């Protein structure tokens, strides 16, 4: 019983369909389940919302169009028109993270963005993709990134490793921000929810707090999806418009 009430029990990975390929455990877990649910929810939200595509949109279609325009403007403001080919990727990333965060707020839900494996994998793909784009676009010129012009030659042995480390730390700072926010928020929510029962009649105070915190968590779900997206855009901008 004690384990079930731990504030961290919500992050536990459960194997729903155990699977094994060689030595690698590829079980279908509750995390995979939530990711598939997220993809289905996002797809049906967008496809069903646009099925009538009326000239004067209804409520649902308005939301779909707003989310499209929101990301399109974000991309235009940060990257410019050169970023347009990458819009599908940016938009998918945003919707996936956002709906993943929001579905995690459901009772009995599971927040896959609260696991660093998930966020780091996403950040790694963004990082590799952006680096490859930069290399293909600028060829050898890309490597001047690590040795800016105007730096004296004798500084190179010191500067180049530092610049490389600085560049490699990007996916970490990108993923840790999303993961830590989700993890901390959900843990806090659970801890305070535990106080409600423990305090009996006085539990009304933490109950109000949990209500407020739930609202804050929903804001954070939006904010972190937005931050993840805008950072992806900024990295893309760096790759396309090399200094």
């Amino acid at each position, binding site marked *: 019983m004690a384990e079930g009430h731990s504030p961290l029990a919500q992050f536990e990975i459960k194997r729903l369909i155990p699977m094994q390929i060689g030595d690698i455990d590829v079980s279908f877990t509750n995390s995979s389940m939530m990711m598939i649910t997220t993809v289905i929810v996002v797809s049906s939200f967008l496809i069903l919302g646009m099925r009538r595509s009326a000239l004067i949109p209804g409520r649902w279609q308005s939301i779909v169009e707003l989310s499209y325009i929101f990301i399109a403007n974000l991309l235009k*403001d940060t990257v410019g*028109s050169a970023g347009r080919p990458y819009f599908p990727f940016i938009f998918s990333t945003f919707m996936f993270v956002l709906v993943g965060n929001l579905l995690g707020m459901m009772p009995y839900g599971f927040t896959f963005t609260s696991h660093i494996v998930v966020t780091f994998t996403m950040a790694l793909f963004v990082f590799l993709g952006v680096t490859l784009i930069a290399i293909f676009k600028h060829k050898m010129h890309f490597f001047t990134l690590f040795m800016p012009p105007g730096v004296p030659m004798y500084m190179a042995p010191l500067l180049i490793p*530092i610049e490389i480390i600085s560049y*490699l730390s990007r996916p970490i700072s990108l993923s*840790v921000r999303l993961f830590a926010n989700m993890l901390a928020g959900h843990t806090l929510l659970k801890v305070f929810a535990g106080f409600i029962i423990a305090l009996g009649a006085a539990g009304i105070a933490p109950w109000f707090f949990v209500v407020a915190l739930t609202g804050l968590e929903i804001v954070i779900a939006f904010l972190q999806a937005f931050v993840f997206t805008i950072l992806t855009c900024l990295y893309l901008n760096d790759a396309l418009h090399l*200094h």
Partner: protein
Amino acid sequence: MINKNKHSELNDLGARLNKARKEPNDPTRHEKDINNEKGGALSLAFRVGVELISAVAIGTAIGWGLDNWLGTRPWLMLVFIILGGAAGVINVYRLASGFGYAPGYRKDNDDAGTHSDSGGD
């Protein structure tokens, strides 16, 4: 009559939409938006912490890997922890001084304006 009204209403809406669409191209907007996103001292502080620590972690990992490869344990790790610390400070410096996320030593805004100009429909 209703139809006619609707038509002029739509035209009006179209004109307003076009006007609204042109506004985001204002180059001053770009900077303001980015700054708003950064807003909130707490999130800035959190970012500074993450930037500092992640660079040190990467430095340590590189040093450890090189040590294992070259068999020079523990010297390269010690060197790379310090380099990682330096990279972390550079990251934070760039974050704080408005260089954006780009490596390099030029201000981000130098050419940002020209890019957003070309982003018309």
